[in-house]
């Protein structure tokens, strides 16, 4: 039985298969509408995350399956003090697959080790969020036609942003990737990542302003400055408006550059950019459903 804990759990070849399947689903969703008839997915969300939960639920419903679960710890048996290990043993009796989000890092891994059904890590604290990374990769691959051979700018909170760290780790497996990290000094990408890139001989640059690199980018990955990662309100307020993408900044970008964002957006992308054909973050959310559908089929051995 297979689980998904980390985006690197799948080899590059396995990801190719997964993405091919996601693209087939995209091309002909009706063909897959009943593959999971009679199957159930448990969405165990120990902290609220409406988008991710609904994306999983939509994926399962699109496949003909059903969903059950809870959307915050207060409405689960965790409020009574039940361990993750016990909860997943129970859930294994009720469902065929489980997507788990938990504020504690490593909780889905503990669940997977005790589970009788495949477990998907739907985000564990600041640690991993593998289905977001799969979504990002599928979006890039589908819209650029390849993974590799481009310069990607990552902008915003590069210190605490787990989606950024996971994406970097996933992209370095592909050839000719060049990174440009765009962030304020306070939110720079951690040293262990730049050390790792240096060690592997992967080119990267660190710049302070979006304008400093815009014309070079094939992809721009914007991130939110997340309030919950700060211990202090003042720091958050001071930094959150640092990097706002607007039409003026975008005018220096390549015609075929893609703008991605894991969402939700606060104000780091001006709404005036939404209608630009380079803005693909809403399409990205749609790819998130396709990749989760492909993942559910793969983990249930129905692919």
């Amino acid at each position, binding site marked *: 039985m297979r689980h998904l804990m980390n985006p690197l759990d799948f080899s590059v070849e396995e990801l190719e298969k997964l993405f091919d399947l996601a693209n087939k689903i995209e091309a002909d969703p009706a063909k897959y509408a009943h593959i999971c008839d009679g199957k159930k997915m448990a969405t165990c969300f120990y902290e609220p995350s409406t988008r991710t939960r609904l994306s999983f639920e939509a994926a399962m419903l699109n496949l003909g399956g059903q969903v059950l679960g809870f959307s915050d710890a207060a409405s689960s048996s965790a409020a009574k003090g039940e*361990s*993750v290990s016990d909860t997943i043993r129970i859930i294994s009796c009720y469902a065929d697959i489980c997507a788990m989000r*938990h504020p*504690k*890092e*490593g*909780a889905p*891994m*503990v669940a997977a080790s005790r589970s009788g059904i495949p477990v998907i890590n739907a985000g564990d604290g600041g640690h991993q969020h593998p289905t977001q990374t799969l979504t990002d990769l599928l979006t890039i691959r589908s819209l650029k036609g390849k993974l590799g051979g481009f310069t990607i700018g990552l902008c915003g909170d590069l210190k605490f942003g787990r989606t950024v760290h996971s994406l970097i780790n996933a992209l370095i497996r592909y050839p000719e990737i060049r990174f440009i990290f765009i962030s304020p000094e306070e939110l720079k990408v951690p040293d262990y990542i730049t050390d790792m890139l240096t060690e592997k001989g992967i080119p990267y640059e660190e710049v302070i302003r979006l304008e400093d690199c815009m014309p070079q980018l094939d992809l721009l990955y914007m991130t939110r400055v997340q309030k919950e990662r700060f211990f202090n309100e003042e720091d958050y307020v001071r930094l959150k408006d640092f990097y706002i993408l607007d039409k003026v900044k975008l005018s220096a970008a390549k015609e075929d550059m893609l703008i991605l964002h894991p969402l939700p957006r606060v104000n780091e992308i001006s709404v005036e950019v939404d209608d630009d054909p380079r803005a693909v973050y809403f399409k990205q959310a749609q790819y998130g459903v396709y990749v989760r559908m492909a993942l559910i089929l793969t983990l249930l051995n129905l692919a």
Partner: protein
Amino acid sequence: MLNVGKIEEGFVLDHIEAGKSLDIYHHLKLDKLDCTVAIIKNARSNKMGKKDILKVECDINTLNLDILAFIDHNITVNVIKDGEIVDKKELVLPREIHNVIKCKNPRCITSIEQELPHIFVLADEEKEIYRCKYCEEKAGTSSTW
């Protein structure tokens, strides 16, 4: 110079970094054993200047070499029989260590899940970096139990 006699049967841990012998004594749970233990601190050493030595009169199998290797794999382990060195154990960094160090990350599942073993995995052999199996927090020997 202070002389500590030979042991007949047991093991000698040599080349311990000066000042570390008591830590090792506790980590190996030697305080729980009912046998003779000599702790020699700040012995003269050509190689290290100063070193600590532990002499323990008990079966080598009671010694957790993984813990010792994790703490300092440069320690020499001499197995003694009939007062003579009969074997030298090489310490290699263990792939995984269980319940030797505690994860210090307050966001780690080990901070709330009862009876979950604290497992650290060797992530970088060259740099001797261990990471928590669950949250991947980097470990230091300072976080030992």
